[in-house]
């Protein structure tokens, strides 16, 4: 919600010029106006400092990663399938692929469930259960990443292995499925990410769904639509842009998520042949290798470069997500 600033009274400086141009007797002396000016300029400077900080942020990351980029080339670093710490060769493709695969798995599993949850909570849930269920879904976001990782390692990986093996054998005709199942894998990492993005995707979807005009829903019902048909013809088309934005915000979260993924992806710097193979992700490689990398400048630079790639990726995705959410809001304005 953008506030239309009240261009009336509150934005007039205390003690304005009188129409004649002279000083009103009500006007404060410039000395007494000083605290106001200080406050205004102080806060403006603070806001400007945030902008400066982000620019500085970017410049320093780029500066520190320049060694890796100049050694391997921006393209070579990002898209070479060769991450070999012992030989000091850093091509981040296996990490990029791992990040993208796990995030896509997270979206495929997490978004439909999150949207269904949002629809159920907003449209179908009995009023009395709604508060409790909403709080419970939100609680998923209160569990720290490292705790999901711990749970993944000691519960999800051992318990799901037979299930994964069965999936792998049964669906081996699909591409990227089949063969022996590793314990930690892209799939497990994706599943944990799905759980982690669920609360935010669900929360934003609920906000978007709540903006669908009641008249449209009632009109659908009045025409004889069932509840589901009302959802399908009145809510989903209206909320599509917003839900897309929510999914993209979830994608941004999934891409940047570090600790849980580090614990369950297997940390193998190769491109896995199938869904249930071990892999690596951009964020996980930083978390794992940074400690040892401090001694080797090129290794450190490569990891910071991985951070920069991550940063740029999340910027693009979040920028896109915002555009979608704003488009959704604009539609709401017209409706």
């Amino acid at each position, binding site marked *: 919600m953008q*506030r239309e600033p009240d261009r*009336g009274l*509150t934005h007039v400086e205390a003690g304005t010029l009188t129409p004649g141009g002279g000083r009103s007797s009500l006007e*404060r002396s410039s000395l007494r106006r000083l*605290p*106001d000016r200080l*406050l205004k300029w102080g*806060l*403006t400077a*603070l*806001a*400007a400092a*945030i902008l400066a900080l*982000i620019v500085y*942020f970017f410049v*320093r*990351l780029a500066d520190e990663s320049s060694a890796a980029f100049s050694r391997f080339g921006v393209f070579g670093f990002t898209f070479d399938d060769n991450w070999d710490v012992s030989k000091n060769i850093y091509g981040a493709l296996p990490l990029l692929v791992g990040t993208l695969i796990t995030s896509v798995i997270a979206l495929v599993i997490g978004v439909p*469930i999150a949207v*269904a*949850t949002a*629809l*159920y*909570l907003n449209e*179908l*849930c009995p009023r009395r259960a709604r508060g409790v269920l909403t709080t*419970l*879904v939100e609680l*998923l976001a*209160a*569990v*720290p*990443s*490292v*705790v999901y*990782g711990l*749970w993944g390692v*000691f*519960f999800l990986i051992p318990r799901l292995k037979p299930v994964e093996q069965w999936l792998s054998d049964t669906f081996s005709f699909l591409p990227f499925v089949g063969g022996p199942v590793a314990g930690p894998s892209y799939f497990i990492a994706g599943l944990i990410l799905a*759980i982690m993005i*669920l609360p935010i995707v669900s929360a934003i979807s609920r906000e978007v769904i709540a903006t669908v005009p009641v008249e449209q829903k009632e009109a659908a019902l009045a025409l*004889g639509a*069932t*509840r*589901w*048909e009302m959802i399908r013809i009145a809510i989903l088309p209206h909320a599509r842009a917003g839900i897309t934005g929510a999914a993209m915000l979830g994608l*941004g979260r999934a891409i*940047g998520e*570090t*600790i849980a993924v580090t*614990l369950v992806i297997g940390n193998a710097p190769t491109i896995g042949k199938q869904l249930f193979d071990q892999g690596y992700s951009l*964020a996980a490689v930083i*978390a794992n290798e*940074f*400690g040892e990398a401090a001694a080797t400048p090129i290794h450190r630079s490569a990891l*910071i470069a991985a*951070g920069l790639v*991550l940063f740029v990726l*999340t*910027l693009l995705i*979040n920028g896109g997500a915002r555009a979608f959410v704003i488009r959704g809001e604009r539609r709401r304005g017209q409706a």
Partner: protein
Amino acid sequence: MSALSFTTSPRRRRTDAVMRGVLLAATLVALVPLVLVIYMLISKGIGAWSWSFFTTDPTGSFLGDPGGIKSAIVGTVAMVLLATVIAVPVGVGVALYLTEFGGGSWFSKAVRYFVDVLTGVPSIVFGLFIYITLVIGHGGFAGWKGSIALALLMLPVVTRSAEVVLLLVPNGLREAALALGAPRWRVVARVVLPTALPGLVTGVLLALARAAGETAPLLFTAVAANATTLNFGGRMNSLPLQIFNDVQQAQDRLVQRAWGAALTLVVMILLTTLIARLASRRSTT
């Protein structure tokens, strides 16, 4: 109703029932991991809890007695509090700029946009940034550097929530105070901020709860230590990092400590969240 059922064919009614069932099932599926996580935390974590678990430091010994998590609890509380002290004035200040002075200018739009950008930055990148700017060549790891990394993480959350709350302060209040001749700084300090206080507290506590669970920003800023310390100039232990390090050990007693620490951390976060909710409830009534 009878007319409605007359026109709704059995097939459509069936579809409706099935889809309602699917949506309900999806909601229950979403809660399965929560139940499982909480069940595992309690069943494994309670066993690790004991008096000495909370009152001794980790020994760092791999085979012998692993020790407790005292330094981790103290370190997490200390670093998160310092991060709050840093993030709240800046975050609320920026929010005040946006609501009280920024108006709809391009500059305030840019600030709002970049605060949103900060929200999306992965927490490990904040850790990297602090490492580059404050750790290498500047005396190594320290607790206060971890706090700054956490503060960067909290900043956008505090700013956005504060902005929302400040916008809820009725303009009539501001205008009444100005009409009485109060200067703007007084309006802000005596009218706007006190009115918004409960909401601000809620936002801050939620940001604090989020920061308390973060591991990635601390990995190479505050690192870890065994001894309990309140010296922000040296390495500091924290619960998330203690868990992260213990999980990766193939030693049952260390893993058990990880479960105990995880339960402690989750309880602390849930209590903070609960207090935050209570604060906001007070503001609405």
